[in-house]
């Protein structure tokens, strides 16, 4: 067993963790089970719901589909890394203030997907927002207030409210 494990270095939210993991461990499992970062959710474990979305080198990807060994050397951001000292990122603030959060289970994935979108396209159209989050399934909100929140965050970020 022991020799099956590999020592990897994961850079998560700016901190480097040295971990021994077996190759079959997904990034989602390592984040949740080894690092206690439970903000990424195991909603389906198949890549169909995107509740496990994290940013890898700035891109939103399904952490349930990527092996932890492959994430070695990449810059990983989880929802826990978006706020600083308890201060929310404008996206998080907009989600809260606009009522875009109900049960909250899809929220971390939704917020990070929106983060990747706004980083690449600071002024997205409503259709671009909807396309970007179309893989993030939500059973509570009908996406109405989620879309509003992302629009609001885009406005705030453009006027210099970046956290």
């Amino acid at each position, binding site marked *: 067993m022991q020799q*099956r494990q590999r020592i990897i270095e994961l850079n998560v939210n700016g901190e480097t963790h040295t971990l021994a993991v077996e190759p079959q461990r997904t990034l989602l499992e390592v984040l949740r089970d080894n690092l206690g970062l439970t903000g990424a959710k195991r909603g389906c474990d198949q890549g169909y719901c995107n509740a496990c979305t994290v940013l890898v080198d700035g891109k939103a990807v399904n952490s349930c589909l990527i092996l932890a060994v492959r994430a070695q050397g990449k810059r990983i951001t989880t929802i826990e890394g978006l706020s600083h000292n308890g201060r929310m990122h404008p996206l998080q603030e907009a989600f809260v203030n606009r009522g875009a959060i109900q049960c909250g289970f899809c929220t971390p994935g939704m917020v990070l997907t929106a983060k*990747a979108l706004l980083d690449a396209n600071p002024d997205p159209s409503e259709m671009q927002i909807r396309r970007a989050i179309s*893989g993030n399934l939500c059973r509570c909100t009908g996406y109405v207030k989620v879309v509003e929140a992302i629009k609001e965050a885009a406005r705030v970020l453009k006027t210099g409210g970046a956290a």
Partner: protein
Amino acid sequence: MQYPRRLPRFEYLEPKSLTEACKLLLQNDGKARVVAGGTDLIPKMKRRDVNPRALISLHGIPGLETISHSQVDGLRLGPLTTLGAVESSTIVTERFNVLYQAVQSMASSQVRGLGTVAGNLCNAAPSADTAPALMVLGTRLKLISPQRERTVAAESFFAGPSATVLEPGEILAEIQIPEVPRRSAGVYIKHTLRRAMDLAIVGVAVAITLQDDTCHNVRIALGAVAPTPIRVPGAEAILKGKGRSGDLFRRAAKEAATACQPIDDVRGSADYRREMVEVLTRRALEQAWDRCPGSTEGKR
């Protein structure tokens, strides 16, 4: 009923060259799988649909994520070029738009960021969206193994559901898309029940090249209506050398519907699929024709 589980144990191999990857494939005697994006393979392994002894990752090999373009060589995609990279490539959107249409219709933005075009082909699902688009673009696929290198046409790559012509030790090394003639246009219509996160009930790709006011060349390919994605040469023949005609589009569409071999499944019945092939082939032909630069519609 098999419930999905955590991933099974496997050996994780990271070759430093494609040749080494091919050798590792051979050494593992059919019990290893090449992994690129993993977006198809990982869920399959969790469901225990496949249970490889080893995964051969291509990510340790430099230079496989390329999108290169020249007038002579056309567009070349590497084995690790992601769907997302293709989607955001200006050259693809401008000159190979039918491929863009196919790619942007797939799964989610997250999956497109991981999954690769080569993986979509090698996974060989009958509904693979990139396949019809690549077929109508006249794509050839470079396959390499320790013994030889060969290229096959995209339409000759598939051998059945989840099966390709790849031989033991062979890897899809490059996707070669020839330069598109000037007065050409392509359309991919994906028929789904949901507008995202869905597999095609029917996928129809059409590429047309005009000369004067006639069809110089046309390719029609279908997804999700046969054991593999298919070309429908019979339907293409109806249109070649002819002018724009609703009647010909209808005849070609009917021929495409006759040529396909759909099945019943949870997404749709065989009859419905066949009917949709006819409707959507006609629409794709109309749209593609009218998008060709210099077509009567296109001039408007």
